[in-house]
């Protein structure tokens, strides 16, 4: 099988259509399982009480907000370098979901911070850099929408996306580089996780659910973008 044949909008459009239900079903199933573990299996935290249950959406949303940006920048760069239309469309399809994940991370973090830290918001490095991430997504989408010629919009917004990548390691390492109110990573590859195993399981299942959701919704959006842009082409006509 030649996978490269799916790099054109025309061949990718039906493939994406077939993949969406698979990822949507996985997202719903994993989301249901994750919420069940999060609310009915995972114990009460001895320090934070029940407020900690916010992490089951906060952590997945925060991870996705960073990961989606990297993937978006990757496709934007591919579109810029190889001049492939589908790559740029993928980048545009990811941006709104990334912005949404960033907002959810900030919102849930704020609601978690109030009972845990005693404040809704502080200007520490982690929170500030995550807020900048939201502005980067909004800036990317605004710039792409402001330029009428889609190919020029692709190129200009790709440059913005690439410049903004520098913010991702800043967010990730902010808790190490600076003395932040936000705690360090709860999960890392180098040491045992600092939480009960059922809590960790619930969180990881929710992370998978957020992954599947993001893939499904981005594929659905890229299909709409393909249909919008290729409206004049013969293959989308009857």
């Amino acid at each position, binding site marked *: 099988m030649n996978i490269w044949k799916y790099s054109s909008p025309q061949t990718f459009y039906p493939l994406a259509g077939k993949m969406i239900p698979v990822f949507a079903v996985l997202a719903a199933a994993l989301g249901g399982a994750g919420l069940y573990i999060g609310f009915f299996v995972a*114990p009460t935290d001895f320090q934070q*009480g029940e*407020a900690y249950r916010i992490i089951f959406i906060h952590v997945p949303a925060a991870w996705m907000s960073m990961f989606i940006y990297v993937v978006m920048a990757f496709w934007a760069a591919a579109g810029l370098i190889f001049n492939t239309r589908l790559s740029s469309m993928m980048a545009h399809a990811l941006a709104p979901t990334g912005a949404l994940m960033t907002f*959810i991370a900030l919102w849930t973090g704020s*609601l978690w911070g109030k009972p845990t830290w005693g404040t809704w918001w502080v200007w520490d490095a982690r929170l500030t850099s995550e807020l900048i991430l939201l502005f980067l997504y909004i800036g990317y989408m605004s710039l792409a929408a402001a330029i009428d010629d889609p190919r020029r919009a692709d190129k200009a917004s790709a440059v913005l996306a690439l410049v903004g990548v520098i913010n991702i390691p800043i967010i990730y390492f902010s808790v190490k580089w600076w003395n932040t109110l936000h705690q360090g990573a709860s999960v890392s590859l180098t040491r045992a996780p600092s939480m009960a195993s059922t809590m960790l399981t619930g969180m990881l299942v929710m992370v998978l659910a957020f992954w599947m959701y993001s893939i499904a919704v981005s594929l659905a959006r890229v299909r*709409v973008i393909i249909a919008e842009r290729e*409206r004049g082409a013969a293959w*989308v006509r009857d």
Partner: protein
Amino acid sequence: MQWGSVSEFLAMGGYAFHVWGSYLVTGVLLAAEIWLLARRSRTLRAMPGRSVRTPERDR
């Protein structure tokens, strides 16, 4: 399971506002994203003159 009753579950040990405020807003936003996307797709298909393949016809 640590919940004795439904009301205990809803109370979230005194953090109902924070926990449900997080989950509710997240749920509403995800639903809104899906709804907006479906509407964008419908609008596109309803455009006169240039028809777009419907998902049913792809299979």
